[in-house]
């Protein structure tokens, strides 16, 4: 889906890069004039006009390609690897420009020419984007360093209290403005940050994140800028859908302007309740997981995470509420909804008298795949998960980690849209964990959704783009990771939400060894 399009040719048949005409107003001026205008909060993406000054004259259009922050570092790297063909839209590159450490300027006003018209005037696609995989839109000359802080400003999408995961989508406005320059200047942008810009990516999510990953230094810089969600992209979802072929500049614009409602979240829970006898294990939770995200569900033991995930997977019936998987109601069309999901449950057995190969074959055949397809995918999965020599052994001889890996492989074998994983990294060694993370990040980068529950807060903080904290059957916080954690680390915030650590007094007898 990200095949790079051929470079346009001019009449002579040359792949000549012809700069599009500049807009009447330079970016800086436009930005300055827009300061007094609306949206103070949409600054995250907009680059300060001042920083643009130097760029504008230097290169008419070399707006650094908008860097799309990959959701996770792994996603970023994979995006970098895989998005070379995608980083063609100058527009997307433009989005990244705002990586300025200084105050976040308000987005510039829309250009005089409508986006579609301006795009249509372009002669060529910014070929350079392709190679400039990570062409950070940040103006290399302008501020190589700012990359890091830039992401931060961008990252703040959190301030909004909405439960929807706000994708810090680049404000459409600034992108529109930058387009003219970007198209021309994109070539020059050196990849400052290795993260793949993945600019043209259809999935908006990755773009959102790039900021945080950008900085090599950890995010100690707090986002000073107010979280200004770029107003245009209120909901990240809309970008997801239309961003199918973000390679073309022409398409990029419209996709940004798609209204939010067109987005279908990968998973939506409304008022889901489950009662076991007297206890309410899950108490009217509402969740909305956008498509193409890495979503984590955290909570203390016995909070109802596994119950929730079992209900999502269709293994348990909810007493009240509705569950929709990619728009398909689980109660109305269970077969259709389950076809879209791949499940890795926790604490449930598997058919361990089969060999590894037979088990994967069983997973595939149950899902209706033909045996030849299953066999080839089994080989691929075994290679990816490093299980090739274990395929001939009975699953009951596997270690716990290998069992988890093979069950995860079985959950993926029918290439679902949504992966629902219950504690996928429990009892898995770090090497395998990183391999699994790479695979899942690539999966997310290509539009899949992963919903996992975990107890490892650093993992969730590092990997996930959205998180929900469930305590005692209720969702105490949900949103993007930065939203939820605010100023603290995720672990501290989690402990704070759950209720703090109990005092450790009263165990004096433990210190007197009774031997």
């Amino acid at each position, binding site marked *: 889906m990200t095949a790079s399009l051929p470079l346009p040719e001019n009449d002579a048949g040359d792949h000549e890069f012809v700069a599009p005409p500049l807009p009447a107003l330079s970016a800086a001026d436009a930005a300055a004039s827009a300061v007094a205008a609306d949206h103070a909060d949409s600054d995250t993406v907009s680059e300060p006009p001042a920083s643009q000054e130097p760029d504008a004259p230097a290169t008419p259009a070399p707006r650094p390609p908008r860097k799309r922050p990959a959701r996770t570092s792994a996603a970023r790297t994979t995006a970098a690897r895989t998005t070379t063909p995608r980083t063609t839209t100058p527009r997307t590159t433009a989005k990244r420009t705002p990586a300025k450490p200084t105050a976040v300027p308000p987005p510039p006003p829309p250009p005089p020419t409508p986006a579609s018209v301006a795009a249509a005037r372009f002669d060529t696609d910014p070929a350079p984007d392709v190679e400039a995989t990570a062409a950070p839109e940040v103006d290399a000359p302008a501020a190589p360093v700012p990359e890091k802080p830039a992401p931060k400003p961008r990252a703040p999408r959190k301030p909004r209290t909405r439960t929807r995961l706000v994708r810090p989508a680049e404000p459409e406005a600034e992108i529109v403005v930058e387009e003219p320059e970007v198209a021309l200047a994109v070539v020059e942008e050196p990849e400052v940050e290795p993260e793949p810009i993945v600019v043209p990516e259809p999935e908006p999510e990755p773009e959102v994140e790039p900021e945080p990953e950008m900085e090599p230094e950890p995010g100690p810089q707090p986002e000073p800028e107010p979280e200004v969600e770029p107003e245009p992209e209120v909901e990240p979802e809309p970008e997801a859908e239309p961003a199918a072929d973000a390679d073309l500049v022409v398409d990029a614009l419209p996709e940004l302007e798609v209204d939010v409602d067109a987005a279908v979240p990968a998973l939506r829970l409304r008022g889901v309740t489950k009662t076991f006898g007297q206890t309410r294990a899950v108490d009217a939770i509402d969740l909305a997981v956008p498509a193409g995200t890495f979503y984590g569900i955290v909570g203390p033991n016995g909070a109802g995470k596994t119950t929730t995930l079992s209900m999502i997977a269709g293994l348990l019936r909810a007493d009240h509420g509705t569950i929709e998987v990619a728009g398909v109601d689980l109660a109305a069309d269970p077969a259709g909804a*389950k076809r879209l999901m791949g499940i890795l449950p926790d604490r449930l*057995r598997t058919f361990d008298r089969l060999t590894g190969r*037979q088990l994967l074959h069983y997973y595939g*055949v149950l899902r*209706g795949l033909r045996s030849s397809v*299953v066999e080839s995918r*089994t080989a691929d999965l075994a290679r990816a998960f490093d299980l090739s020599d274990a395929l001939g052994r009975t699953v009951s001889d596997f270690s716990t980690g290998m069992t988890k890996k093979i069950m995860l492989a079985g959950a993926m074998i029918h290439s679902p849209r949504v992966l629902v994983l219950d504690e996928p990294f429990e009892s898995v060694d770090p090497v395998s964990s990183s391999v699994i993370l790479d695979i899942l990040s690539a999966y997310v980068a290509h539009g899949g959704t992963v919903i996992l529950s975990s107890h490892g807060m650093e993992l969730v903080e590092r990997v996930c783009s959205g998180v929900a904290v469930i305590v005692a059957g209720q969702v105490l916080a949900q949103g993007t990771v930065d939203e939820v954690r605010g100023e603290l680390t995720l672990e501290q915030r989690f402990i704070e939400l759950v209720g703090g650590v109990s005092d450790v007094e009263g165990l004096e007898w433990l210190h007197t060894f009774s031997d």
Partner: protein
Amino acid sequence: MVAHVLRLRFDLLVGALRGDRRRAARMILGLVVVTAAVVGVFIAAARLRGVDLAVADTVTVIAGSALVLGFFAAPLVGGLDDQLDPRRFAVFGMSSGAVAGAILLAGVISIPVLTLIAVGVAVTGLWTAHGASGPLTVFAVVLGVVTCMLAARIGLALAGLVLRGRRTRELSGLLLVAVLVIVVPVVVFFVSLEWDGAVPSALREAVAVLSVTPLGAAWAIPGAALTGTLTGPLLVAIGTVLALAALWVWLVRVLLTTTERPGVGRERAGLGWFVLTPSTPTGGIAARSLIYWLRDPRHLVNLVIVPVTAVVIVLPLLVVGVPFEYIALVPAPVMALFFGWLVHNDLAYDSTALWMHIAAAVRGGADRAGRLVPVLLVGLPLLAIAIPLSVALHGRWAILPALAGVCASLFLTGLGLSSVSSVLAPYAVSRPGDSPFQQPQRTNGGLAQGVVLIGALVLSAPALWWGWLALTADVSYAWVALWGGIGIGLAVLLLGVGIGAAIFNRSGGRLMEFVEST
């Protein structure tokens, strides 16, 4: 070109004795055995010369039919490698007719066919001694030999076409079981007949039927010539040879113009039963159930206990003094009933692994049907062996249809009721990995057990009644019992599978809660 192929075949034959010492020794041992068998055939033929015409005819026809059947089935069952596979001649550019003829001719130079020719010579000597005309007998024997050769070639070609990718241990075992299922009753039947120097009437009818089938027509010609009913067997024999020859040429053409399915490689090696079943959810569940039934001690114990129970049950009856003929008829229906009852709680044996079926939204029909396959695969052969044995012990072969009908009814109704009970009312069983004799704590255990058992008996009451009538009153009820029993059994089975499927589709959550609580 034909000469080249003949030469090639001869070299292959000689080459079988070269190479690995142990293999050569085995070949030589086989040769010795075959020679001894041929000598025995000659002796038997000599002995048959002085016997009644009907007996000689019977023996010839039956032996000939068995030979033709064996030549056809051996490549399919035994997985023999075809030395003259038509596909190997594909690169030489010969026409398919030329290849077919050359291979057929070269097939003469092989141990089985040479043995067959020797047997044919013995048969010729036998019948000429009885007075049949020489040329006709030779012609008949030639027809018989050619029929066997064509049957073998066709068997090899079919094995190469259909079974190449699926040749696994499981398949060989399955085919061997099928052969046993066919052979054992027949052998039992023959052994139980009383000869007294004359051919039993039942056998005479069987021979008369075989004489006009492709299997035995060629071998029946000499005897039929002597008794005057020549035209039937002659026409059928000639027609068979022509038809088989045409089929063989067509198969050669197909083999020369198609290639093997690619990718059938090592990957299929480790799949076991999954290779044999179709790649549908039903097939997958059937394969997985087969693997579990044949490996899991919990199931194995169930499987073994049933025949033992069936036999043990007759002991009290023996003690009591029930006549032996009636006792002989008891084990088979008891086995059928318990085999049908065995799967009444099959779902609970999966324990929490059932989540895979529910998360994949497997259709209820696929799940129910797949779970029945292991029991069918084990029960049918055992019943097919037990029924003739029982009837042989009973003494009156006319009762065979009634016994078969009763067993079919009990078996199939049991399966149908079990399909419903395993989703409607499963109860806790020993967990995977536990000892099969370790019963878990149960609160509502045995209702399903009793209901299925009694229900199968009740639903089979008509078949049982007809069987009883056939036994005591009128033997003609035997056929009524057969068709009635099969009909009732199939109806209950289909109904049960359908209802069970509907219940399964709607109660995924309830079943998951059940398995998680056991």
